[in-house]
């Protein structure tokens, strides 16, 4: 970056440059040198609680904290000397002394910093022969979070998150010495829309989510990045799904959605709505094609799509703008919107193209925006003017193509039923089963955003491309594939269109 001064230092004999003001831990990390730590988190000021990141600095008698010592020109740092290694072992031995070692039933096992650091930097025989301290193992602290005080290593990341990020400060450290423990104040529970992040930042299994506890093991999960589709912030998320092993019919496909990192969008956090997005991926999905709301067994969507092309073809070219209506939505990716534009506007010459999306909510001043769709900027960028259809517009159509279930949020089922009764050919493409299904001739199951690749443009104009995080259920396809097949069926060549 221009304008940022850099300093040159030596870490483990390697010449490293780092931006002025960076700490040794980050400088080492960027040079690929791992300095183990528990309490340090890049989102917070260093607190120096865990003492795991102690390193040797030439000219200084004591070991120094890598997390709080800023880089300086000419600094010579050593992170792998016997003295440093001994200090790490000592910290691990202290942390493990009273630790319950209940890894076999701990949900953090497999992604636990204490396990990982012991595995890499510990591996000493235990010397602790005293009785381990007993502490509360099941403290419900609110928002579906469970605190296990025996596993807690008092890094206080959770306390700092609630003080610095949400500003709600529900957790504190109580008592002193080895009796010190995390807790809520009196009986006021953790209650904010970002509480789920506490599970992500807890380096051990002290704070776990009831939604995830005892459901699966961390090592069975495939972690794939995606972009959260639940508001126009477009936070980076990680979709964690079971890839097959060990249960062919696992209880869930997606076990959790966790925060991804994107400094330009969400930093390190996501809201609990985004986390609850796992339900959207797995629940309420239609089993297959529906005809008047009734499942059609074994009929491939490609074959059924021929009915859609036939209905469109039946409308003479010059009548199409008046008689074919299309309802899109802002969950479509930029690429899909461009394809829709090429098919419906350029190819078929339609002008009755509207959008139906979830109703807006309220912005919370942190990450959640009022707009509860991921890509309305993308719709504008594709040349659409997203507006809700009128009932008359729907009623007057001969052929109606509706993408998504957004209409249900704006019109009553009864009004839609009356409007659609007059439409001879009507087709729905939706990822979730809903009350609209039975009003349409055919309802095609779609992929959800996590099952798609593409690009969203967020509220701040940030373009984010993402890859498919998991495969759609059998028979469900992304809108883009539907659009391509429709074009093919209509004999239209969408050509090499530019995305958005």
């Amino acid at each position, binding site marked *: 970056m221009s304008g940022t001064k850099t300093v040159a230092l030596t870490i483990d004999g390697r010449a490293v440059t780092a931006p002025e003001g960076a700490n040794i831990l980050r400088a080492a990390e960027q040079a690929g040198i791992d300095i183990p730590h528990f309490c340090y988190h890049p989102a917070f000021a*260093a*607190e*120096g*609680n*865990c*003492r*795991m990141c*102690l390193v040797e600095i030439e000219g200084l008698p*004591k*070991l120094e*904290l890598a997390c*709080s010592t800023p880089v300086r020109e000419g600094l010579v740092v050593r992170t792998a000397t016997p003295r440093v290694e001994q*200090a790490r072992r*000592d*910290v691990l*031995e*202290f*942390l493990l*002394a*009273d630790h319950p070692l209940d890894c076999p039933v701990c949900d953090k096992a497999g992604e636990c910093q204490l396990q990982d650091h012991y595995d890499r930097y510990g591996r000493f025989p235990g*010397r*602790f*022969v*005293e009785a381990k301290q007993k502490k509360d193992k099941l403290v419900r602290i609110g928002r579906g979070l469970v605190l296990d005080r025996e596993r807690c*290593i*008092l890094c206080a990341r959770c306390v700092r998150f609630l003080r610095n990020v949400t500003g709600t400060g529900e957790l*504190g*450290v109580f*008592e*002193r*010495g*080895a*009796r*010190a423990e995390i807790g809520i104040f009196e009986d006021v529970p953790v209650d904010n829309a970002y509480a789920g992040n506490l599970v992500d930042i807890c380096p051990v299994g002290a704070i776990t989510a009831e939604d995830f506890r005892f459901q699966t093991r961390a090592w069975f999960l495939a972690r794939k990045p995606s972009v959260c589709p639940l508001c126009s912030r477009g936070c980076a998320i990680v979709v964690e799904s079971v890839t097959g092993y060990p249960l062919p019919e696992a209880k869930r496909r997606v076990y959790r959605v966790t925060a991804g990192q994107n400094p330009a969008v969400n930093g390190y956090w996501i809201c609990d709505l985004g986390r609850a997005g796992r339900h959207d991926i797995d629940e309420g999905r239609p089993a297959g094609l529906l005809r008047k709301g009734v499942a059609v067994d074994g009929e491939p969507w490609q074959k059924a799509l021929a009915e859609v092309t036939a209905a469109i073809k039946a409308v003479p070219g010059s009548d199409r703008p008046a008689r074919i209506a299309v309802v899109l939505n802002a969950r479509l990716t930029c690429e899909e919107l461009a394809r829709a534009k090429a098919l419906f506007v350029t190819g078929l010459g339609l002008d009755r193209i509207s959008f139906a999306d979830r109703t807006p909510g309220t912005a919370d001043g942190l990450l959640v925006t009022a707009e509860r769709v991921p890509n309305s900027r993308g719709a504008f960028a594709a040349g659409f003017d997203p507006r809700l259809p009128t009932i008359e517009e729907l009623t007057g159509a001969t052929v109606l193509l509706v993408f998504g279930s957004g209409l249900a949020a704006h019109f009553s089922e009864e009004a839609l039923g009356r409007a659609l009764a007059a439409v001879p050919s009507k087709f729905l493409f939706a990822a979730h089963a809903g009350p609209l299904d039975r009003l349409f001739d055919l309802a095609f199951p779609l992929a959800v955003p996590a099952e798609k690749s593409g690009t969203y443009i967020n509220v701040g104009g940030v373009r984010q491309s993402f890859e498919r995080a998991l495969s759609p259920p059998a028979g469900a396809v992304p809108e883009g594939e539907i659009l391509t097949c429709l074009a093919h069926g209509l004999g239209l060549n969408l050509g090499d269109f530019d995305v958005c």
Partner: protein
Amino acid sequence: MSQDTVRLIPSDEGSWRLDAYLRRGGYEAARKAVTSMAPAGIIAEVRKAGLRGRGGAGFPAGLKWSFVPQGVSGPKYLCVNADEGEPGTFKDRAILVRDPHRLLEGMVIAAFAVGIHTAIVYVRGEYERIAGRLREAMAEAEGAGFLGPDIFGSGFGLEVVIHFGAGAYICGEETALLESVEGRRGTPRLKPPFPAVAGLFRAPTVINNVETLANVPSIIGRGADWFTAQGLPKDCGTRLFSVSGAVRRPGLYELPTGIPLRTLIEDHAGGPPEGVSVKAVIPGGLSAPVLRADELEAHLDFESMALVCSMAGSAGVIVIGDRTPMLEVLGVMSRFYAHESCGQCTPCRIGTSWIHRTVTRIAAGQGRRGDLDLILSLADGIKGRTLCPMGDAAALPIQALVTKFRDELEQAVER
């Protein structure tokens, strides 16, 4: 002691009252400082006097004052550390009881020198009644114009607030003290930034011990040369030695720095009672590594004590007689640090507790071979690795005790 030496603890009738203090020449130094001296001149005089912090660390007070950035707008604070939590130390309470005006005068001078208008006296909770004397003295001083918005008519003002601690040893550590005053849980802060730059409410802050400030009026009143004529060249003046344990006359002794430990114990405190001999001495509060009976020739000043790998610390001298089992001393010591560790950083939180549990097991007759080495090794894991000096304060005395009295302790382990 002659008239011409420092007397921090007066013995005249009603010595704590303003009129008695004025009879002893009280507030003349503050008047001189505030009305006729430049702040920089005061700091220079205190630096020249070589007054070292009496709380335990021995940091030169004038130097500390000079670290406060000058010419910066916004508030600055003076925090007086009257938390006096170091076991074996009971000197600050004597000043608060017998001579609270001397502390207030020292505060006025320090505040004027650094440009401070608000001072907080952080008094340990157990001294609540004692602090009544300070409160009375504050009212008297304000009534006489020695404290308050316009001191000696100079336009310089100083407001003093008393803040009580809630009983945590750690709040005697200066940054934990600041956290406590700010209304939070008393846990130390990472340094830097140092309090002189970002202290109370992140404003520049001077933190001085009660005894340190009580020395300031004489230094300003009589000059640095007069002060340095007492005690040692690099560690001047007198110290209040709190002597407890196996001596005939336990109590508080004000003596020049650098006197031999043996002189203090035998000549002043009367030596051990009949039939008891001195086995060990903790020379500077519980955190000072113990000395054996054959080390009593050592002198009581910061440098001499460092030479015998101990500390002058808070000058709390605990004399241990030959009838006291060292395992019991180790038990008291390890319980104290395990109980008082704030719990913020790993080595101190768990190390002190582990050591204490090991010592308790040995005391219960379930010692195992290797326990003493385990204790030494656990203390090694604390030493130099903690967030604040309390880690060393716990590890060093425990290691010294185990090392110096290993044979006796080994027998207890084997039993």
